[in-house]
């Protein structure tokens, strides 16, 4: 990270009018699509409950399922590598590139590869990497990071995207998405046809069959995992489901929560490399399949009270629902994983030290938990991390200085509860008057410093300390 602080990035984001427009359009649209899609699922609540059970059970027996998964991938002719951390994962991938004499690589979307800064490593080695997901390609050409888990270029307008792609890919200039996409198809098809190696992420690894499930809409994931001679699949250790039936449950909620589709356009199930035989074998598909299973801090998170974040299936719904994300976008978080999930995962994986502000980038309104397909209790873990930050003296400046009252009140439980209840009431009253869908633009002093750049959410009917107590 550079010496640009979290607050600088937030400040920048809040002053970026165009970002605000892009974010509002996208997050509200995705949020609406999600609601309709879940309505199309009979017994959506029951399916979500089962999805949560599956994730919890799998993580509680993770080592056993990983062993079963690895054995089945190998049985079907694939290779499995375990990587301790990002450097280890890079070493494995680069050695494979050398072993197969790779000159060019085409990539599908992979968050793990972002953790590894893999593209940079390849460039150092003189190997050309082409991102093939449209949004991912836009941010690659711009030299940026994705700003959303499932919509990496969410912060771009059509004009910016058209200009950038015209400039970098030398395709004809257009600001019409349909025309741009047509030119990109032609240009990138040539890359798919000559690339020596394809690299993708993995949504789920099915333990009982050794199958990789990879979901996508563009067809770039299919091309990447079908056309090049070698396919490398990067997955986090937690991306396992035990059975095909479990997979079908997870798929019922993943696309609905992410993009509002019943199912993504392509649900690729990949089991081993191309089947070969002396006389008749499959005529296409990769000659070799390597699955790289990456830890990079996850097993450490597993041993803590943050382990529940490993249930995450990376749908992105919590980003769209989060009032803070809606205001500041993904880049302000400064980490690979933005939004509520990132605010827990990043300090968990990398340590609270450099990331102490992230757990505070939340109003604890509970929207993330509400929309999460596997009902991850993100607010609980944000509070846990705040506590840890306080204990280590890492509380962000605004908590220390902006709210001197806070400490006094917060240390006296009775008073704290009274103030929360009273202000909850007050906030709801004010919201009625100001009429902003329950959100306040300006709080009265002394809290006005806090709302200078954020809306204050209406309090939940049950306050946090009440919810906290009930859970215990």
């Amino acid at each position, binding site marked *: 990270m550079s010496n640009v602080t979290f607050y600088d990035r937030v400040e920048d984001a809040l002053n970026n009018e165009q970002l605000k427009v892009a974010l509002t359009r996208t997050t509200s649209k995705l949020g609406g699509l999600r609601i309709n899609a879940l309505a199309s699922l009979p017994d959506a609540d029951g399916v979500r409950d089962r999805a949560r059970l599956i994730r919890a059970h799998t993580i509680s027996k993770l080592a056993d399922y990983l062993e079963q998964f690895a054995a089945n991938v190998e049985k079907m002719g694939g290779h499995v590598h375990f990587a301790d951390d990002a450097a280890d994962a890079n070493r494995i991938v680069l050695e494979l590139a050398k072993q197969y004499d790779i000159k060019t690589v085409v990539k599908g979307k992979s968050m793990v590869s972002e953790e590894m800064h893999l593209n940079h490593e390849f460039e150092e080695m003189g190997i050309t990497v082409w991102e093939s997901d449209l949004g991912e390609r836009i941010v690659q050409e711009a030299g940026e990071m994705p700003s959303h888990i499932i919509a990496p270029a969410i912060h771009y307008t059509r004009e910016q995207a058209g200009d950038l792609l015209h400039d970098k890919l030398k395709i004809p200039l257009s600001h019409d998405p349909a025309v741009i996409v*047509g030119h990109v198809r032609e240009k990138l098809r040539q890359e798919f046809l000559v690339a020596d190696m394809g690299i993708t992420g993995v949504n789920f690894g099915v333990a009982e069959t050794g199958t990789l499930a990879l979901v996508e809409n563009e067809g770039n994931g299919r091309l990447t995992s079908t056309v090049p001679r070698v396919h490398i699949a990067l997955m986090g250790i937690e991306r396992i489901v035990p059975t095909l*039936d479990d997979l079908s449950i997870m798929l019922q909620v993943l696309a609905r929560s992410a993009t509002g589709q019943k199912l993504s356009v392509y649900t690729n199930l990949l089991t081993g490399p191309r089947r070969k035989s002396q006389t008749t074998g499959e005529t296409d598909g990769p000659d070799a399949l390597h699955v790289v299973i990456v830890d990079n801090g996850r097993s450490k998170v597993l041993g803590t009270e943050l382990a529940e974040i490993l249930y995450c299936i990376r749908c992105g719904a919590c980003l769209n629902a989060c009032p803070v994300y809606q205001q500041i976008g993904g880049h302000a978080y400064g980490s690979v994983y933005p939004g509520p999930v990132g605010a827990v995962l990043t300090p968990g994986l990398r340590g609270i030290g450099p990331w102490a502000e992230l757990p505070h980038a939340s109003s604890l309104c509970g929207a993330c938990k509400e929309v999460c397909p596997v009902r991850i209790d993100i607010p609980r873990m944000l509070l846990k991390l705040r506590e840890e930050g306080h204990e280590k003296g890492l509380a962000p400046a605004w908590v220390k200085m902006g709210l001197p009252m806070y400490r006094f009140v917060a240390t006296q439980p009775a008073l704290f509860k009274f103030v929360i209840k009273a202000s909850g009431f007050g906030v709801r009253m004010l919201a009625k008057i100001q009429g902003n869908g329950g959100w306040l633009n300006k709080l009265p002093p002394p809290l006005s410093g806090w709302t200078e750049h954020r809306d204050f959410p209406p309090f939940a009917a049950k306050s946090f300390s009440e919810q906290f107590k009930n859970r215990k």
Partner: protein
Amino acid sequence: MQDSRQIVLDRIRSSLKTSVLPMARASISPREAAPSSDYAAMSQSFQRDMETVGAKIHRPANDFAAVDLVVDLIQELGSNEILAWDDAELPLAGLPYALHKAGIRRADHRIPNDDIGRKQKLAALSALRVGLTGASAGLADTGSLAVISSPTRPRLASLLPMTHISLLPINRLYPTMAAFFAAHPGVMQDASNLVFISGPSRTADIEMTLTVGVHGPKYIHVVLCP
């Protein structure tokens, strides 16, 4: 190449001793995925969902009509060479002969091993405009085709061309993905690739504007064979 398998697995096992994992149960009771033989209802639901995402569904009255329809579709697109599955894989008996009679050739989909030959072949296949496949199943609740690879069923036929025509006999419909898996327990062992296809290739990466035909087929025709 030595790797970190044991280190990672050991660390996971030791972390699990102190994990806080809400709702973790020792096991989860298996489900029965309900089958269905209500083909009228399933084909209706399949058609509705496929059409919603812009695929075209054809319902010819009988096999003869189906054969004519496929030949017409290909001729309308002006193609005399297509990327197709082998004869035995097309669930429409009269089709191979009709294609032959109409002068529509099937490209040889075998790909040479040497690098230059391989890339030339891929480029040639990529220039074809129509892919023809048979679907192993249709999923009624999501409007999806299950397309499974084999030596005689190349993956590229449903991937490279701008138009993908797929033949789906109505009795291959399943109510859900779970019911399909339950009916085909060994399906993953037999093929390197099973893809569920739910409409034309698409993206919404630029300003959330839905745009079709990104890297896969832009036009999907499903011929529901009686």
